[in-house]
């Protein structure tokens, strides 16, 4: 009797603590929405329930931020970075794990080093590399370094996947006399689909939200990533809280939507990643 009562109290307390954490997490979004719905040009105070929500602010912000242009720009960058990144990472991991290239372990350790390097530490040489190549202010100057910088994680991730493939499958493919390419195409890629999907989601998200590389390589905000454009939008309309909040919410909406749709995949991927260990 006593135990149930105390555990019921525990449950209630637990719910309250968890609820507080959720409120804390949602607070910034609620704050922006509240500001975005105040009359245009006004100076809002704190979080208020708008008496007369000014949804029109979103239309103004949509036009001011040139949303379609910069979404397209981000999408182009994603298309430049993600496929190349996936191919390079998958091929390298396949060579190291399945084909067991000589000194593949050494190659892997060298790649692993890149996982801990902060981008800021490389940004200066990368800028001069692109400047010397005459590529500054082109999308290539953003895309090429990103492919390279994301590569260590990609190889790391795909290597973990290939190591999880039962040895029998790898050997059967060899015994059949199937060539490396055929084994990769017909046996390993179909098996790698879940791992590749996760990597695709992560690479796309990272590119979409990439800030410092876009900021340094590209002067034109509309040709940057969404995050880079958002930074410029803040610089331009920083004092107009209503417009800034509406614009920032609009700019973040696509990632939030994609997350809402694919949240199960996100969660499953994370769980898988940990459970395998």
């Amino acid at each position: 009797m006593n135990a149930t009562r105390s555990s019921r109290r525990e449950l209630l307390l637990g719910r309250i603590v968890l609820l507080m954490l959720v409120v804390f997490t949602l607070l910034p979004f609620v704050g922006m929405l509240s500001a975005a719905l105040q009359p245009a040009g006004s100076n809002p105070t704190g979080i208020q329930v708008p008496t007369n929500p000014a949804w029109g602010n979103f239309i103004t912000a949509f036009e001011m931020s040139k949303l379609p242009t910069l979404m397209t720009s981000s999408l182009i960058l994603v298309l430049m970075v993600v496929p190349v990144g996936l191919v390079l990472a998958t091929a390298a991991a396949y060579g190291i794990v399945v084909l067991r290239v000589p000194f593949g372990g050494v190659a892997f350790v060298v790649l692993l080093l890149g996982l801990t390097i902060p981008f800021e530490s490389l940004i200066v040489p990368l800028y001069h590399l692109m400047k010397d190549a005459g590529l500054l202010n082109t999308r290539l100057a953003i895309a090429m370094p990103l492919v390279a910088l994301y590569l260590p994680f990609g190889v790391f991730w795909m290597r973990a996947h290939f190591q999880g493939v039962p040895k029998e499958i790898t050997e059967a493919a060899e015994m059949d006399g199937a060539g490396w390419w055929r084994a990769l195409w017909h046996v390993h890629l179909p098996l790698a689909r879940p791992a590749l999907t996760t990597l695709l989601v992560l690479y796309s998200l990272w590119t979409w939200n990439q800030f410092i590389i876009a900021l340094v390589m590209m002067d034109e905000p509309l040709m940057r990533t969404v995050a880079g454009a958002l930074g410029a939008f803040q610089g331009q309309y920083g004092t107009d809280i209503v417009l800034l909040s509406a614009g920032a919410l609009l700019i973040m909406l696509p990632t939030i939507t994609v997350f809402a749709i694919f949240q199960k995949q996100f969660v499953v991927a994370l769980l898988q990643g940990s459970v395998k260990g």
Partner: protein
Amino acid sequence: MTKLDQVVVGAQGSGPAAGGGRRTSRRGGQRRGPWAAWIFVLPALAVYGFFTLQSLAKSVQYSFYSWNGIGEATWVGLANYVEVFSDPRRVTALANAFKLIFFYSFLSIALGLIAATLIRGLNSRWSRASQTLLFLPQVVPLVGAGIAWTWLYSSDGAVNQFLRAIGLGEVARAWLADFTFALPAIGIVGTWVLIGLCTMLLSAGMTKIDPALYDAARVDGAGPIREFFAVTLPGVRGELTVCLTVTLIAALANFDVVYTMTLGGPGGSTMVPGVDIYQLAFNQARVGAASAMGVVLMVLVLALVLPLQRIMRERP
């Protein structure tokens, strides 16, 4: 969203890697594959070598010169490194990076542990939904988070509104313009970003703990607190290491949040190495000093993260 990249990196990677290590050793005795198979590895290694390794080497090289990025570079030996450890602005930036560890690592892991334990205990649809909501900050650009929090912290923002509502109006202030509170205010944004990731990882770890251990603890008469320290905490040791690795990197290599919220101000009180590097190189044309700071930052991250990896590998 530079640092978030790294964040999710560690989170996603750690698990399979641990399993992989064991498998590799089992395969150890097998014959090597042919050299021709390098055709698969070479493209990746070439791209990595050209961009990442070359930049790494150049960073080190630049750090020994005084160079404005255009004209002639002059060899200055270790002068840039002496500056990193003596110039108040550089030293403050490094010290701030360490102070942020409290918010980015300690607070978010502690809250993540609490949340994951509660979610496990409640085990309802609602508690799992809250786990997803907590993860939301991970998918929005950090710049967006910075803009949102700047508004919350402003003199008319929600934080002051709340303080006035509970009768603490006299402590209300423009938080990001305050020399004492601007850095903690930024730190809390880091906590906000990382709680969800830690919760998710630790929850995953807790599902792997053998339920018999909890039963045994209950039979021994352990309350929830003792159960937590005797069963849960040791059970998620590996996940804790991952959380620590990821959050440490996020704390030290912070750029987006500080750049958006304060640019290092007021008066350099929130300066961090990332923003310092950016301003040195691109506003002050001091490429050598920026590179020295970059190298020091890189070494710091390695020095903190590598020992953690060793601990993880020694896990029984």
